[in-house]
């Protein structure tokens, strides 16, 4: 009896040593956690599959090839109710991209201007901007989306549309404007545009080198505008105006022709860009205030004018503080665009929801949603990280 008790005690001791030893303990616990996690994942997957089978649903993405049979009002690519679910999702995806990119551009512009203006010495201006920032930042974005939508659908009815020159019409169904019709030969105008962009880049590089060497500056703004806008316009007239306009016309119920920007798109875009812009403006303000005052004082001492000081001395240094938090704001904006569903803007989530409902493939659709937003976010992050590295302070 005694001997058995002894051996088991010795075994217990050995086991305890295994646990008190730092290295083996680490391994044991990591293993336990990993196994627990694995068991959990296996359970989730098995449970899901069992439930799917019980509900008589087959997992898989084959349904994407089935015809959708519903219509979408805002299509950036060809789409009819005969197109597939997959194509419907692409249409929704492009709508998400459209409102996100418009939103990111506007939010960046609004945020940047508001951030700079809030630091302005002009009392009224800085107070106005403060009011804007504090107001939009502290009201849920969903309410702001609905607010803008309510305002836009409260615009005059179709029959009483506000119009500018009988070509641009604003009513509670959106903004209808002339659509460009590209005719034969427009490729040349486009080519001229590309040439203009390339030429501007080349000249800008040359001008910078010359400035580094001789200190002479070139009026790059005017050169760039002339090349990028002027050149295509000249080419357009030389080859006989290959661009005409499809002007909207009143019909019995609506307008025909031209293209329509729906109130849903405008409301979503306004709300997202003003909301995110307010956050970005705070990043900008923080970035500018992080640049030591000595920098601008030194710039003034060298005889630089205030706007040159801002543009050449303060902003470049502020950017490295501004960019990282602004990246997350851009990501937020993209993800917030899924609130589109509240006002019936047909984005990825809205169309995905309809598909989910018609096909019953809930897991697959949710999987696609997650994959798309994840990749969009990672792409944006990658780009912003690249830009951040590019403008990072190089110590010499």
């Amino acid at each position, binding site marked *: 009896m005694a001997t058995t008790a002894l051996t088991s005690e010795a075994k217990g001791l050995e086991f305890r040593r295994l646990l008190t030893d730092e290295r083996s*303990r680490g391994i044991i616990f990591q293993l336990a956690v990993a196994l627990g996690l694995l068991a959990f994942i296996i359970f989730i997957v098995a*449970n899901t599959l069992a439930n799917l089978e019980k509900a008589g649903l087959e997992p898989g993405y084959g349904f994407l090839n089935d015809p959708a049979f519903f219509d979408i009002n805002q299509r950036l690519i060809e789409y*009819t109710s005969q197109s597939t679910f997959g194509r419907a999702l692409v249409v929704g995806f492009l709508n998400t991209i459209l409102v996100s990119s418009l939103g990111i551009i506007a939010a960046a512009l609004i945020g940047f201007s508001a951030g700079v203006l809030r630091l302005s010495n002009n009392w009224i201006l800085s107070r106005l901007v403060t009011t804007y920032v504090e107001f939009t930042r502290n009201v849920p974005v969903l309410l702001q989306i609905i607010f803008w939508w309510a305002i836009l659908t409260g615009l005059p009815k179709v029959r009483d549309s506000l119009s500018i020159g009988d070509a641009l019409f604003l009513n509670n169904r959106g903004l209808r404007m002339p659509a460009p019709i590209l005719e034969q030969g427009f490729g040349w105008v486009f080519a001229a545009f590309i040439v203009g962009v390339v030429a501007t880049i080349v000249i800008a590089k040359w001008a910078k080198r010359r400035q580094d060497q001789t200190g002479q500056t070139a009026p790059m703004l005017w050169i760039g505008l002339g090349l990028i806008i002027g050149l295509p316009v000249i080419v357009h007239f030389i080859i006989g105006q290959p661009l005409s306009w499809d002007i909207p016309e009143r019909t019995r*119920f*609506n307008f*025909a022709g031209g293209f329509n920007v729906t109130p849903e798109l405008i409301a979503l875009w306004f709300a997202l860009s003003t909301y995110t812009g307010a956050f970005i403006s705070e990043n900008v303000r923080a970035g500018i205030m992080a640049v030591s005052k000595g920098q601008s004082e030194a710039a003034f001492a060298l005889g630089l004018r205030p706007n040159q000081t801002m543009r050449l001395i303060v902003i470049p240094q502020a950017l490295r503080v501004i960019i990282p938090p602004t990246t997350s704001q851009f990501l937020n904006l993209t993800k917030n665009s899924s609130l589109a569903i509240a006002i019936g803007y047909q984005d990825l989530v809205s169309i995905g929801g309809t598909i*989910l409902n018609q096909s019953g493939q*809930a897991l697959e659709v949710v999987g696609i949603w997650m994959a798309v937003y994840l990749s969009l976010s990672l792409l944006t992050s990658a780009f912003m990280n690249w830009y951040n590295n590019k403008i990072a302070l190089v110590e010499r």
Partner: protein
Amino acid sequence: MKFTAITGAVAAVAAMWIAGGAAGGAHAATLDDVKAAGEVKCGINTGLPGFAFTDDKGNWTGFDVAYCKALAAAVFGDPGKVKYVNLTGKNRFPALASGEIDVLSRNTTWTFSRDVDLGFTFIGVSYYDGQGFIGRTALGAKSAKELDGASVCIQTGTTTELNLADYFRSNNIKYEPVPIETNEEARKAYEAERCDVYTTDASGLAATKSTFPDAENHMVFPEIVSKEPLGPLVRQGDDQWADIARWTLNALINAEELGLTQANVDKMAVKGNNPEVNRMLGSEGSLGEMLGLSKTWAVAVIKSEGNYSEIFERYLGKDTPLGLARGQNALYKDGGILYAPPMR
């Protein structure tokens, strides 16, 4: 010692997960779940006059709600034992598939793909409907075929969305769809003239029109562009529960045919000389037990809100703001197509 305790806890939790997985996989009968919960979880509309709306005391009531009450009465003998879950056209199916509700009674169209592909069982038709359009008389359009170029409000995730696309495509009519989540929001968008016409089931149009202060300025177009047999549905695979749901509906229809009403059902429950009534109300035979319910389940069903006709007239009929005629929904004996199999 402490460490072993923690390891033990981790192992126990893991074991519970695995055990839980096994339990989750097992097939539980809906009736047992319902009895254990003490209430029927019934999915209804977020608000559609006549079908599912709140009365002045804030209680859910209406044609679809009456079915929920009848089902609760069949199971518990008490029409009050219902938990209402308000669902949009979009989230109703996931709610039923996931078991969040036991039965969906939300003016849902019975279609092939919903019955077969989505894994549900429709238990019958409670209302024969069809899709129509409502528009302002000021538009000057007399028919849906004149709607070329119009903006059309629709509820997303419904069959109406699909019928609309089909109908306009086959008639070569261009339109702008304005997708909206709920009937209430669609009504607001239509009132704000965000769209020229609103399309949904004809009963829904009547319901919506009844809420307009200027109802005379709106007209329902004559075209009915689809068949919309509306009815309750349950998850596929639990035949007992489907039977209970199906025969609750059939009992309401048969009650009208047999002249059983909320007022007289107690008197009729005493064995009389009509064998069909005796079987249905449990004074003869054992239909209730076959369903796994009490002998007098059908008495409770009819006592909850009356027979089909009483429910129809109370919520949808001539004396309601909706003012719908029985039409197709009259009994087969009265020129309609409502026909329930016999209770024997």
